[in-house]
Every structure is written in C-alpha cells, then in structure tokens.
C-alpha cells in the first residue's frame, strides 16, 4: 500500500511491521515525531509492544540492552547529542553482541547548538562496533529498518539505520508499506540463544581477563581480546550476510539489490562522486547535467559504512580517473571521514584514481545546486592530484 508520509513515520511503520516488542526512547529533534508515532501505535494497540519512557538517551539504550538480553526484540532512536549521551551504552551493546536496531536521525552536534542536519553524530560513533547503514529516501528507510532487524539477529551485532534529519525525517514523499504477512515470513519472531533465564542464572559480560582461561567446567574460554577479535571478524563477514538478506527481501518485495553501494551512471564513467544519504540522490541531478555536457560521470551512494566494504569500493572506483567525495562529516583535525576510508581502500590499486574531498551542509547550511555543480566540475576539469585536505563548500553565507 502506497502512502505519503514523513520519513519518521516511514521508520515507525517499519518498526511496527518488525513486531518490535520493546521501545525505549527519549525525544530529541528531529527524531521526536518517530517516537511520538511509535507511542501512538502502541497506545492504539496497533503495535503490541512495551513503550518504556526514560529520563535520558543513556537509559533508553540501557533499557533496550536489558530487553534484548531478556529475549525481546527492541528498538530505540535518537539524534545528535542524544546519541553522544548514550555513547557508553552504544559501545556496550556492540560488545555484548545484542541484536538491537536504532534509527539515528542525523543532526549536527553541539556546540554550538544546531537542530539541523549533517552526519557528524553517527559518524562519530563509527568505531563503536555497530553496523551503520545510511539510506537515501523513505522507501529505503522502511525497507532497511525491517532488513536491519534480520541482519542484527543473524549476526548478533546491533544496527544503526541513519537517515537525514529534516531532509528525510520531516519531508513527506510516497513510499510503499510492505504487506504485514510477507514481513512476518521475512522476519520471523525473535529468539535469542543467550536469553537471560531466572531458572538458569548466569553472569553476562563481567570483568574479563586479558588472557584466555578455563571456565568452571574446565573449558578454555576467550579473553577480552579474543572476544573483541570475534566482533571484528563477524562484522567483516556480515557484509555478505547483508547481501543475502537483501536478496531474500527483494525476492519477496521486489525492491533492493544494492544494499552495500548503489551506483548511478557509474558504468564506464571517468569520474565518480561518492556520497551518503539523501545528498547522493541530490547529486544525481548534477551528474545528469554534466553528462549532457559531455562528461562521463556517475554517483556512488555508500549505504553500508560500517563494516566498511573495501572490496566493493575498489570494484566500483578503481577504473575511474577521479573520485570526488562529498560529505557532511569529518574526522576533526584530519579530513572527511568517508574520504579517508575511500582513500585507504584504494591504496592497493595499481592505477589509483585521483581523489578530492569536499565538506558540505554542516548544521543544515544550505546546499546549493550551483555549489555542487561548480565543485564537481572543477574537480573533473582541473586538478588530478591525490589530496589530503578537504575543501569546504558554502562557507560564510
């Protein structure tokens, strides 16, 4: 069934279809309408879940961690400083290998305060051990929320579904709401193999020694470093798992096919612009114009940011003359976050494309079509260097 609603409502409907059992969230702009919608759905009995109100984001995720440990399918959502306030629990959830799903409605981070969009909030949590997926429109929001639960539960790693505050959260556009029965087939009821059980009490995630040692039954058990190595290994192998899940989703719903990266006009392109979120779609219009002018140029939208899909990045970019990375976040004191990752991925290539970095739209700074056009065109027509410095678009206006 097609509906025209905001991105926040699309996310809430995905959470509803996933038959989430526990929702704990603290409202923060621009995530608020998502949590409001969920509380409405639960109040109306359309979603049979427990909505646990909390006094902070830290508690929101702590409640979800508890719920998932007790065997419930749990969801939370936040933005910006709310995400940072829960950061300690963000790391914990990954280390504890709990299959949570969280929507991060991307917003710039204070200070100074801003309620408007960029990607600094979720990018700052990229090293926490979660899977991070960036989506570009409302259809991708609802579909990805549903897929995220299956992914999280398959690999026992929590998943962030990141979408642009305001640009997607508050904008209304048409999307298809998947059929409930088909979602039930795709995403069966959650059953967690390490569920807490009062009949058989055990400690979880207690102080773990630097060294491996035998447990009470004399079986050798991993130490801290081994457990962390498992997380890293299983994050890496979750890339093909996500591809399989997307294929299964496509077989039922007819949508998907590019869960890791989606390429637009990249086939045989001399230049490829890489971006994340709704900005990737915006750049399609610029690329269309430049193609009409005779440049061979495409857009590569990076959906899966953690684990970072090096092999797919290499395959997508290695034959281009140049790569232009445009993004809304950076590793302060260094360079654009996605840019740094893409450059590192391209290092083994024998014939490396040049790489340019642009920072745009921080804290909701208007992204003008002309700015995008000028920056991309300049990169295609002038310099062919491998740069270390990010250029900032749209300063001082």
């Amino acid at each position, binding site marked *: 069934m*097609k509906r025209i609603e905001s991105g926040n409502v699309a996310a809430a409907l995905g959470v509803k279809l996933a038959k989430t059992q526990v929702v704990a969230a603290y409202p923060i702009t621009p995530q608020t309408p998502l949590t409001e919608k969920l509380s409405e759905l639960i109040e109306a009995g359309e979603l049979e879940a427990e909505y646990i109100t909390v006094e902070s984001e830290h508690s929101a995720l702590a409640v979800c961690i508890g719920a998932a440990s007790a065997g419930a399918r749990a969801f939370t959502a936040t933005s910006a400083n709310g995400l940072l306030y829960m950061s300690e629990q963000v790391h914990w959830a990954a280390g504890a290998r709990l299959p949570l799903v969280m929507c991060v409605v991307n917003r710039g981070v204070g200070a100074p305060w801003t309620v408007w969009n960029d990607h600094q909030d979720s990018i700052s949590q990229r090293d926490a051990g979660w899977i991070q997926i960036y989506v570009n429109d409302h259809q991708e929001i609802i579909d990805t929320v549903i897929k995220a639960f299956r992914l999280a539960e398959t690999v026992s790693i929590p998943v962030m579904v990141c979408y642009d505050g305001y640009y997607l959260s508050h*904008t*209304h556009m048409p999307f298809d709401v998947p059929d409930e029965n088909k979602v039930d087939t795709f995403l069966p009821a959650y059953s967690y193999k390490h569920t807490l059980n009062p009949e058989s009490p055990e400690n979880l995630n207690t102080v773990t020694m630097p060294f491996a040692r035998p447990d009470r039954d004399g079986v050798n058990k991993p130490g801290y470093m081994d457990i962390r190595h498992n997380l890293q290994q299983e994050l890496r192998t979750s890339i093909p798992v996500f591809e399989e899940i997307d294929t299964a989703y496509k077989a039922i719903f007819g949508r998907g096919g590019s869960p890791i990266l989606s390429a637009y006009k990249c086939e045989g392109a001399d230049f490829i612009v890489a971006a994340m979120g709704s900005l990737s779609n915006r750049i399609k219009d610029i690329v269309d114009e430049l193609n009409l002018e005779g440049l061979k140029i495409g857009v590569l939208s990076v959906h899966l940011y953690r684990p970072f899909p090096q092999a797919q990045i290499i395959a997508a970019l290695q034959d281009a003359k140049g790569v232009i990375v445009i993004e809304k976040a950076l590793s302060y004191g260094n360079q654009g976050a996605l840019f740094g990752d893409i450059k590192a991925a391209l290092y083994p290539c024998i014939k490396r494309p040049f790489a340019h970095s642009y920072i745009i739209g921080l804290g909701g700074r208007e992204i003008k079509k002309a700015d995008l056009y000028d920056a991309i065109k300049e990169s295609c027509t002038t310099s062919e260097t491998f740069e270390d410095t990010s250029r900032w678009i749209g300063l001082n206006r």
Partner: protein
Amino acid sequence: MSSEITRIRWHGRGGQGAITAAKIVAKAAFDSGYEGIVMVPSFGTERRGAPVSTSLKISKTKINDLSPTENPDIVVVLDHLILDEVDVTAGLKEGGLLVLNSPRKLEDYQFKNIKLAIADVTGLSSEVGLKKGIVNSGIIGVLAKAVDLVKMSVLAKGIEAEFVGKKPEENAKSALLAYERTEMGEM
C-alpha cells in the same frame, strides 16, 4: 529535470493546517499519476500562530532535490493577514500564481506580473458549518480552480479521507464552494 517540476509554496500559521492541505494535494497528485511528490516543511522550530511555510513539489518523475522551494510557480496563502508579515511573493516566478484566502476583492490588491486567485474561504467554511477558522480544506478549492494540476473531484475525495471523524463532508463542501466562488485576475 527541473523544468517539469511544479513548485507550490504554502504560507499559513502554525496550527492552521497548511501542511495538512499540502498533504491532501500531494496525495491527490500521486493518485492522479504524479510519481515525484516531495513536501518539505520549513525546517526548524515551529510555533502555533507564527507564520510557517511548506514547499510542495510535484513531478511526473522522482524528485531528488529535497531543499525548500525558492522560486515557486504557485504561492498559496491561508490567511491574508500574513501578507503584512511575510513577503509571500518572494521568488514567485513572473506570471506565477498567488492563491489567497481573503475577505477582500481582487481589485483591493496590487501585485505585479502575477495571476491572483482569491476567495473568502474563512466566510465560506462557516457557511457550510465548519468551525470558524477551518480554512485548509477550502483553500484547496481555490487552488484547484486556478490551476489545472489535479481534478477537483479527486481533491474532494482526498479531503473527505483526510478529515475522517472531523466533518469530512462539510470540509469537502467548503472546497467545492470555494472552487465555484473563486475570482481570478491577472496583474
């Protein structure tokens, strides 16, 4: 491409229902075969009673630009007093359309190089039995009369669907009456 997109900017007051009105038109346009529908509310912190705006873009194909509209083809104003507070025609294309709820007459307004469509939606909505100040259904009738984008019959059905439990028939009637009583002029 951009030339095929119809851009409508709506001006109302927080709580007046401009976003609901834009949503009804968006849904009706989608049901009429437009695939590209994007409604972008003014970004930020809205307050009840303060002037707010929302952009609605309609196209036959998917729209990638999610930024608010700077150069609308059409401006819709739910409350004529907003004209004193906001430059509603800012960026309106030459020869563009202004859709206005006002108790005044066409000749009371002096704009340059635009088309004006006007109806006393506030008065008409009371006439059909709506609570005073419900204008977001009626204004759709004025828009429908002034521009050939979506059929009035489809819009009336959309209004009834949106206002379920909130006088749906009266709301649709208000739009149909406004459609009939709209005055149009070029200036």
